[in-house]
């Protein structure tokens, strides 16, 4: 006891030269109070309510994107959202149908497959295809991607991207759930067309009555239907979508999804055909033959977090008001511990101080630019309800315009 006290007293003895701490120290020691002081400045000081990183509550970080950086991939992109950076590479590999164990059993006759296929006419616009014939084409068109796992996204955080993640460690729970989120968003938005991934084979028509139908398979019309009957799928492209978060400063999902989207927009698949003599799939070397994927829409993710003035609101059961009572308190009239802010695109510092998250993925379809929500998540609290979600969807659709500009320029 005595040595401990003796050791403590000299440490306490020299008083610091001044009682003021530099802001960076204060931010580390009292993170919650630091952010709160920024967001609710004293009325006298005439400062605007601003986040500790200098952004307004609904302001996103500066975003930049660059595609085609990796030469050994079919498509790649680097997306930076502030200090968070994600690299995504898309690699295409061939999957022969003869390597799929259940292929010959599960496939319906080629004729019905072709009838279905006609509904996904590539000349139609993406929006029209999704809007009009999604019901009819769903089974044939998309079940291949899901059943055969033609899209394989993986996200890696073990790159030394942040102090909490050790390089070379097994994938953390966060990395795994981000991979799952990307995969399930790819499936639910049906972003990639299964038709782009199919490699067809049209056996030559040897019958005498088919002589006039030797035009190429793109020019399908009703007359060609009988000739199309023998067409069969010989192989699929499997897209391996690998995302590396090389720097993590909060909000990994937005950056990762934007990089996946940019990389898929950049992806070119070589022209491939079935070579009957060698019984294998042959790809063309020529870059001019390669074609880009035609994606359905452009869903953009926006994430938010809720910062609450009262750090203890979650566990003090007594003060929890009913939802109805709470709704009556208008957002401007909230004071003291009731105040809360919804912060767009949280950085790592803000993520550590908030429990409630929301993520909204929106797309705009057609000429009228109507906002369609593709995915909406909120979890971890009760500050966000219908009214707040409505505002967040508005912010997300503004963000969509912004991200579209960035992705179209890169």
């Amino acid at each position, binding site marked *: 006891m005595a040595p401990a006290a003796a050791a403590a007293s000299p440490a306490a003895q020299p008083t610091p030269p001044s009682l003021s701490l530099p802001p960076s120290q204060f931010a580390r020691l009292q993170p919650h109070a630091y952010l709160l002081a920024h967001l609710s400045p004293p009325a006298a000081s005439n400062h605007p309510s601003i986040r500790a990183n200098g952004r307004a509550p609904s302001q996103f970080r500066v975003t930049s994107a660059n595609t085609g950086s990796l030469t050994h991939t079919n498509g790649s992109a680097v997306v930076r959202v502030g200090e968070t950076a994600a690299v995504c590479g898309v690699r295409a590999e061939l999957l022969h149908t003869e390597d799929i164990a259940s292929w010959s059993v599960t496939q319906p006759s080629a004729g019905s497959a072709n009838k279905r296929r006609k509904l996904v006419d590539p000349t139609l616009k993406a929006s029209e295809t999704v809007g009009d014939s999604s019901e009819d084409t769903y089974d044939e068109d998309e079940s291949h991607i899901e059943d055969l796992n033609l899209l394989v996204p993986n996200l890696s955080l073990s790159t030394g991207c942040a102090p909490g993640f050790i390089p070379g460690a097994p994938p953390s729970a966060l990395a795994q759930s981000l991979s*799952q989120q990307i995969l399930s968003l790819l*499936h639910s938005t049906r972003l990639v067309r299964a038709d782009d991934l199919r490699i067809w084979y049209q056996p030559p028509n040897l019958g005498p009555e088919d002589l006039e139908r030797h035009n190429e398979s793109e020019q399908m019309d009703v007359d060609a239907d009988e000739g199309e009957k023998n067409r069969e799928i010989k192989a699929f492209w499997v897209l391996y979508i690998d995302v590396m978060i090389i720097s993590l400063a909060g909000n990994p999902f937005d950056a990762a999804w934007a990089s996946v989207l940019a990389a898929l927009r950049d992806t070119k698949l070589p022209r491939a055909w079935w070579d009957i003599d060698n019984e294998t799939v042959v790809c063309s070397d020529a870059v001019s033959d390669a074609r880009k994927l035609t994606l359905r829409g452009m869903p953009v993710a926006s994430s938010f977090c809720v910062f609450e003035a009262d750090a203890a609101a979650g*566990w003090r059961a007594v003060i929890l008001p009913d939802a109805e009572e*709470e709704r009556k308190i208008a957002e401007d009239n909230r004071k003291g511990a009731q105040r809360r802010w919804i912060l767009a695109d949280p950085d790592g510092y803000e993520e550590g101080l908030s429990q409630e998250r929301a993520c909204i993925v929106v797309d705009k379809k057609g000429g009228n630019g109507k906002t*369609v929500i593709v995915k909406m*998540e*909120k*979890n971890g609290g009760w500050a966000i309800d*219908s009214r707040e979600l409505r505002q967040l969807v508005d912010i997300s659709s503004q963000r969509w315009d912004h991200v579209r500009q960035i992705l179209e320029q890169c």
Partner: protein
Amino acid sequence: MVGPNVTLTPLSRADGSASYQCPSTGSNILGSVNAPVELPGRRDALKPEEATVEVFVKPGTAPAGVGERYVEGIIKTMISRLILGREKGYPRRGVVITLAIVGGQPARRGDSYLTLLPALLNTSLLALLSASVPMSMTFSATSLAVTSTGDILREPTAEVANSAASVHVLAFSSKGHLLLNESQGAFDLDTWDNVRERALAICRGTASFGSDGDVTMTVDVDGQPLEGAIREAVEDQVHRDYAWSIDAV
């Protein structure tokens, strides 16, 4: 609509447990809760003033994969906000929730898990109640599918969810807060408002609504609100457990 089939404390060795069967999806979940338990020294147990919540989801037929990690994260975020982790005996300790999917359709790779999520959430609530873990409020969760024609279907099976335009999972607290929303598939906010209203009616009944003809009709379809069913199951169990003391009076 038939209410869920609930058994409280079916496992004798765990601190608390519950089994929950959803009649419409057929999913059957067995959940156990151990709390408070000592966790081994962990790097990620960062908050020394609060309990650490751990959730494990075990699919019935396969080892857990990334889908389970994701759904574990959702359950953990939601529940850790409700557990009073600063009560006596809880800080620096763990609340371990294990949920085994015993019956129903297994989820495939890349599946959203949304059809199973409400059953998993309701099971974990019942198991937490059975283990007497202090919580700030209870909740009830449900899933809804919106078909391409705009019909709202309650608790869809995996096939229905696959062909639906959008699938939504919502959880409401016992005080009426929207605790969780997971929506997937294309929809707009007006659709979502209808979904929210319907989900609120399923979870908490329609006490908060006026005498609208349409709303009263959905009440008949939905039967007893979920929260009431959960409350009743717990009341019955408490009544059975304390029968000796009630009889003695």
